[in-house]
């Protein structure tokens, strides 16, 4: 269950191209699972920006002087994220969370690969920790356009069995994309599940490679969200159900984590004609 709390900014620090924000979030941090996200009210009372902004929950500390606290990793995209990284210590912040369906963890101690693109690595830390606790093998691949858009490589290296880095410009690790290395890594380690968070085209390719290797994939998507809690229907994408029927599912409540083989990646942004309730020639 999600709650709405008035938290406080504890710290804003730069990390390469990103900012890491620490927030007090009593009542939220206690219930976070890897893959959960939260939304923040933006701009203050008299702001012209009405909509909340969504962020993956990066880390939680449920004890300490401040009660429950948590971290998020913010890339400045537009005016809301700009406002956010300009906050100062002790500024109040309205938080709703934890939201969404988290990653599904394997019951058995299987071999896994975690793939993070850019700030998409943020939710993978907790995931890696919990996977290690379950005795899973955890190989991590991080990719970004350039070195400074990689997040958390050092720490993930500590958590992972292996860490592979790719950058589009070759400024760190292998020049190229995460998916250039995924297949061989899966082969070498007999990967059973791939977890991924990053841009849509990356997720699509990850899901395909996982399927090619008869592995599961769990992909955390990022769709524009007006409410984040399931009431507005803005965040939908076409997903095939267990019954084989395609429905427009809400990324905020039925995601953000979807099984990679269920999402109709190439049709995201459209209503495939065979979707339940799709417009017909004569109809709406």
């Amino acid at each position, binding site marked *: *269950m*999600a*709650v*709405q709390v008035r938290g406080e900014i504890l710290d804003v620090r730069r990390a390469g191209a990103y900012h890491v924000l620490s927030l007090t979030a009593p009542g939220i941090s206690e219930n976070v699972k890897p893959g959960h996200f939260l939304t923040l*009210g933006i701009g203050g009372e008299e702001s*012209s*920006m*009405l*909509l*909340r902004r969504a962020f993956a929950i990066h880390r939680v500390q449920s004890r300490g002087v401040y009660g429950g606290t948590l971290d998020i990793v913010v890339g400045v995209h537009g005016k809301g994220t700009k406002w956010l990284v300009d906050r100062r210590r002790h500024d109040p912040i*309205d938080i*709703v969370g934890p939201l969404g369906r988290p990653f599904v963890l394997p019951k058995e101690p299987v071999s896994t690969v975690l793939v993070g693109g850019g700030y998409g690595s943020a939710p993978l830390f907790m995931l890696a920790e919990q996977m290690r606790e379950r005795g899973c093998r955890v190989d991590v691949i991080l990719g970004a356009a350039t070195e400074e858009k990689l997040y958390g490589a050092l720490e993930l290296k500590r958590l992972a069995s292996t860490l592979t880095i790719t950058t589009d410009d070759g400024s760190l690790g292998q020049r190229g994309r995460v998916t250039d290395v995924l297949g061989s890594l899966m082969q070498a380690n007999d990967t059973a599940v791939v977890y991924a968070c990053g841009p849509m085209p990356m997720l699509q390719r990850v899901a395909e490679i996982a399927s090619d290797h008869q592995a599961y994939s769990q992909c955390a998507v990022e*769709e*524009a969200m*007006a*409410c*984040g*809690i*399931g*009431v*507005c*229907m*803005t*965040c*939908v*994408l076409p997903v095939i159900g267990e019954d084989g029927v395609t*429905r*427009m599912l809400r990324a905020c*409540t039925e995601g953000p984590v979807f099984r990679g083989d269920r999402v109709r990646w190439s049709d*995201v*942004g*459209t*209503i495939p004609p065979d*979707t*339940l*309730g*799709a*417009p017909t020639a004569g*109809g*709406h």
Partner: protein
Amino acid sequence: MTRALIKGPVADAALPEVDMSTSLGGLALPAPILTASGCAASGRELDQFFDLTSIGAIVTKSIMLNPRSGRATPRMAETPSGMLNSIGLQGPGIDRFIEHDLAWLEERGARVIVSIAGGTVDEYGKLAARLRTVRSVAAIEVNISCPNVEDRGQVFACRAGSASDVVHAVRRHSDPRMPLFAKLSPDVTDIVEITDAVVRAGATGVSVINTVLGMVIDTDTMRPHLAGVTGGLSGPAIRPVAVRCIWQIRQAFPSLPIIGMGGVRSGKDALEFVLAGANAVSVGTAVFHDPSAPSRIQIELQRALGARGFRRFADAVGFAHRPADLPREEDPDEFDFISE
């Protein structure tokens, strides 16, 4: 009329005693704040943020006869103090809605106003007929801001004739005692004319306003931002338009039940609507900003009414229409700095 005072989780030691009950042409509600259609789904998701039974009623997302996928994404754009949406009425269809959503709401004990939408006059009639057998429907809101597939996609709400046809069909197929609210679009030359038409066709009252037609162009792709090209503008940006529409309708129809909505974000905003003439106030886009908004706004409204000396919500309805005070002889000896 019930006279229940807001109690339970919404109550608070410092909350002034105000009879918050309201009457919407036969529909008695213990409190005047509702959710706005399409901004609360069927209530379930909001129940974790506030007690659904504490507010006047849940107005559900407009439901159509058949399951419906809605439009392609992007479906929304943030705009200054507002947002555009173009959802395309995604929903499960009336049957699943009744079985699944209405049943849950009934069990939860919430009062429910069901919003219906159709592509043809006939479809509205069928929806009304289907709802006739369902006990837990407190009222029907008829969303007539839908394109008429039989008339080049012209929106029903925009012409007195088509608006009236829809309401007529719903009235004919509903229990005669069922309160019906026609939800009007502000995108018309004369909203009083449309109100007149739907009232003649059998509407118990009106819900005003639906979203204002708007559009955003993405300056990066240099194309319309929404997949649906145009969308509905909502949020505080349109509040003055909503207040004006309510005012105009209340001027023309002194006792017509009016559900007001459009940019309400605080108890003071809700009070503005009530003073203009609304008998109940729906909270829409504000929920996206603050999921507990309906309950918070109801408490704030109660406080605002109490602070202004109202003992009964009903006394504030349309209060801004009262005749002007007698021209006060300005006595310059009477100034004091407290008025600064």
